[in-house]
């Protein structure tokens, strides 16, 4: 599995890509695609949708690169883009569902089904599957906080909710996961 490149290694490629160098951008893509895909897939609960969203993330990153000032690492910056893309996607899905009078809080579709995950670690496999089955809101907060390490204040800003709301969703997610894993 490819590891993310260090910020110092990225900086040259970031500058080149911002100037329109697609090869440099491809190198950045190669260095970060797995992390971005992991985030997208876990947050949206679908590998297939995660792949589509990952493409959207890198297209958006390409569009916004000239505005990237280097205040943070490229990986942090592209991660934030990924979170925004997934959250926007969820809002759009929510609107579409409301139009179709379906339940907005539907669980994930196909991700992390036990059969789809290499059986290297049964506990992890179960947890991954359980995360995929969480309601969308709880899943996203859980992934951002407990998997990705975001703080509640950051999550609140990203999701447009309060820090208290983020904590409550996280607690709900943990209890649901516990219930699923101890069933």
């Amino acid at each position, binding site marked *: *599995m490819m590891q993310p490149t260090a910020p110092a290694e990225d900086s040259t490629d970031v500058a080149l890509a911002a100037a329109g160098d697609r090869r440099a951008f491809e190198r950045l893509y190669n260095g970060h695609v797995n992390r971005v895909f992991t985030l997208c897939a876990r947050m949206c609960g679908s590998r297939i949708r995660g792949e589509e969203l990952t493409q959207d993330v890198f297209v958006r990153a390409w569009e916004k690169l000239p505005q990237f000032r280097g205040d943070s690492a490229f990986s942090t910056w592209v991660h934030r883009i990924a979170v925004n893309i997934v959250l926007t996607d969820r809002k759009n899905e929510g609107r579409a569902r409301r139009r179709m009078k379906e339940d907005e809080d539907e669980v994930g579709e196909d991700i992390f089904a036990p059969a789809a995950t290499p059986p290297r670690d049964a506990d*992890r496999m179960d947890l991954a599957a359980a995360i995929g089955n969480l309601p969308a809101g709880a899943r996203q907060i859980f992934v951002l906080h407990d998997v990705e390490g975001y703080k509640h204040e950051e999550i609140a800003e990203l999701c447009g909710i309060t820090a208290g709301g983020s904590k409550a969703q996280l607690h709900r997610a943990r209890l649901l996961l516990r219930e699923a894993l101890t069933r």
Partner: protein
Amino acid sequence: MTDRQMMTCTAVDSELLGYLEGTLAADARTAVDEHVASCLRCSSILRDIGSIRAQAAQLPELAPSRDLWAGISARIEPAVVPLGRARQDIRRSWIPAATAAAAALVIATAGITYFATTRSLRPMTQKVAAAPKGGPGAQGIAQPAIVPSTATAPPDTSVSSAVSASAAPTSVAAAPAGERSGGRAPSAGVRLASRRNEPAAGPGEIAYGDEIARLQNIIKQRRRELDPGTVTVIEQSLAIINAAVRQSRAALARDPRSGFLTDQLNHALDKKIELLRTVALLPSRT
């Protein structure tokens, strides 16, 4: 579990969020700790949640099941025809703006084209009538590289089949520089229709048709990813722009020397490419 413990368990449940977040006051935290030390249920909850947190932080990275770069690369392909608003942030608000701009364009084109052609055709007809066929009067006038033939073509605004709808010109009519009615200087970007006295695009030269075809191919591949409502709006906008392109071509066929009409056609094709490029960059399902 005693009644006292049940109550305390309920109290612990209500304090659990603050306990785990470390926001409980010291005395409340001590009370929870004391209860947990003697309660199997509550200690089990805390242990399990701690385990979930630890496992979550150690979850392995995933990898896509297919190559995603090809799709990304196609969408970020630089525009062959430079766009004034290249690499701008793409937001949903472009859709009504694009529709309004396209509508304004077609209205302006229709009105101005009518005015320009009715004014310019009469003197030109007289000149042509006065000059012998193939005589000196015919020299030096650049002809359209491709004679537009879309005047009778049925409109086709489907996004997926819009390659044909564009009647993709590999080159656009050129008019002598001195006869351009507009005073605007040619843009710094390469615009095929602005080249003068060049009958056809040579190798490596940039053509609208190639760019339109390339973008439409991307959009065709992405069609299922886009929201049907968005596709409908795009098709409506394309229909308006295609109508402007057809009208400009028809007028240009009648008056191939008109720099003004050439600019009108350029403008319409620019709009079309701008719209297609925007669609190619749209996030999926928006």
